[in-house]
């Protein structure tokens, strides 16, 4: 349809072409970003539930064993439900934040605007926290360096270890400087974990609320308020579970609470321990963390001596 006015349609400030196919890339990516956020949110709820079982170390070990029993399939599950959605959501989230907005939560301090600002702030907190989480649980980077160099200075760094799930989780959250839970650096680490988990809970609950608007599920103000209450309830429930997980691994955690090495993981390890070449081919992982066989060797060796 052509109209007389069409010729006079001016350029927008950035000079972008509104209706071209590439002009709509942002729309499609934004919808993918939303789906990825929801998928990763599902994982976060599951993950916090598993970690809340640290309140009962035996149950926690059983859950970890169950996850580890997926064996090599776990890598596939992790990739589809954790890494891929997280990577997409995180990268595009940073792009959304970075493409310019004028936060004005102080000037216009309405609830919706404060939640808008917090959605972005918690996104940035999560960016830092997830990096810290991977660093504490897996010493990513350091573990790789250790793998390549066997540099002894790194061998004292603890990380998550499915066969001694409970003890290694609690130890990994502590800084390597002291096992004392009230050592200042450990307190900072715990605080980071509380901040990170609660940021994730808010970001997830509020994300459920905005996603419903973005997709057009909730339209009227009444429907948005009603769905908002559901999101609040989800947030409270996931928050309670998350707090259970936090307590279980921080203040209530006992670093020395290692359980006997039982379960599939160990059996799997023992089966492969004799084949040095098998190390590379059997990536064991759980909770998004790849188990590194040599650590297990080290633990076994330590036990034997």
């Amino acid at each position: 349809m052509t109209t007389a006015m069409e010729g006079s349609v001016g350029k927008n400030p950035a000079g972008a072409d509104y209706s071209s196919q590439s002009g709509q890339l942002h729309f499609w990516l934004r919808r993918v970003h939303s789906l990825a956020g929801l998928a990763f949110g599902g994982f976060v709820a599951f993950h916090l539930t598993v970690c809340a079982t640290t309140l009962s170390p035996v149950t926690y070990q059983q859950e970890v064993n169950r996850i580890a029993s997926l064996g090599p399939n776990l890598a596939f599950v992790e990739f589809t439900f954790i890494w891929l959605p997280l990577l997409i959501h995180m990268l595009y989230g940073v792009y959304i934040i970075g493409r310019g907005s004028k936060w004005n939560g102080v000037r216009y301090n309405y609830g919706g605007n404060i939640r808008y600002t917090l959605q972005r702030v918690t996104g940035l907190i999560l960016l830092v926290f997830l990096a810290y989480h991977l660093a504490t649980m897996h010493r990513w980077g350091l573990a790789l360096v250790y793998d390549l160099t066997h540099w002894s200075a790194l061998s004292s760094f603890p990380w998550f270890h499915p066969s001694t799930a409970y003890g290694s989780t609690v130890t990994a959250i502590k800084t390597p400087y002291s096992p004392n839970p009230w050592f200042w650096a450990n307190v900072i680490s715990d605080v980071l974990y509380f901040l990170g988990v609660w940021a994730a809970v808010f970001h997830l609950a509020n994300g459920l609320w905005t996603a419903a608007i973005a997709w057009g599920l909730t339209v009227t103000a009444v429907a948005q308020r009603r769905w908002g209450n559901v999101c609040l309830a989800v947030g409270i429930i996931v928050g309670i579970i998350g707090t259970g997980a936090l307590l279980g691994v921080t203040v209530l955690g006992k670093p020395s609470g290692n359980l006997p090495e039982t379960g599939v993981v160990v059996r799997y390890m023992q089966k492969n321990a004799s084949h040095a070449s098998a190390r590379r081919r059997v990536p064991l992982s759980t909770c998004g963390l790849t188990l590194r066989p040599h650590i297990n060797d080290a633990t076994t060796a330590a036990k034997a001596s």
Partner: protein
Amino acid sequence: MIAPAEKGKTVKLNILRQDSPDAKPYWQNFEVPCNAGSNVTSLLRSISESPVTAGGAKVAPPAYEASCLEEVCGSCTMVINGRVRQACSTLVRKIHPHDSEEPITIEPMTKFPVIRDLVVDRSRTFENLKRIKAWIPIDSSYNLGPGPRITPEEQQAMYPLSRCMTCGACLEACPQFTRDNNFVGAQIISIARYYNMHPNGKILKDERMEVLMGEGGITDCGNAQNCVKVCPKEIPLTESIGVIGRAATVYSIKKFFSK
């Protein structure tokens, strides 16, 4: 009830001035008579009548826009005490505590280029109205006869949307609408919904959706929902955003599979 005018009462104003589009803005203080019924436009008018600063310097009167004086044209929209408002309908006694020594701050809107003092260039909104084809196509080489009937129910749903006066308040308050991006903002999304509801306006619905799914369209909404809070015409802007979001979901599926 109209309170009696108080003799000799004055109020201090702190106005952000700018001599030309590229000039540096600067603050200037004034002190003007104020009575119980004064609104911000009337204060600005008193300054124009005798443009003398609080320090006694004679200056060029601050430029401002006003037309309807009853909150239906939107031309007097500016930032008053840090919040976007229509100067003509902003009663001084509503925003300013009695006897307060604090000045009222008056600034031009921050999301549009300043032409001079409190006058801004809102042509971006007009360009966006054109871009989403905010009209009803009735051009023809012969008489098309009377248009389709609109039921009273439809009229009731459409009327609130028709009240938009393109004042720009929703855009000023929106954290996602900035000077250097190309987000169209709540106003345009709501107007698109309005024309999509009209039986003849519907003809251009797909074309509007193409635009709203493009750069600067519905995707850039971040659901801060300030727009609906500041809109002086109480337009259900967030509902319009939800409606267009839903239409975009439906249209994108349709487009993906059949276009």
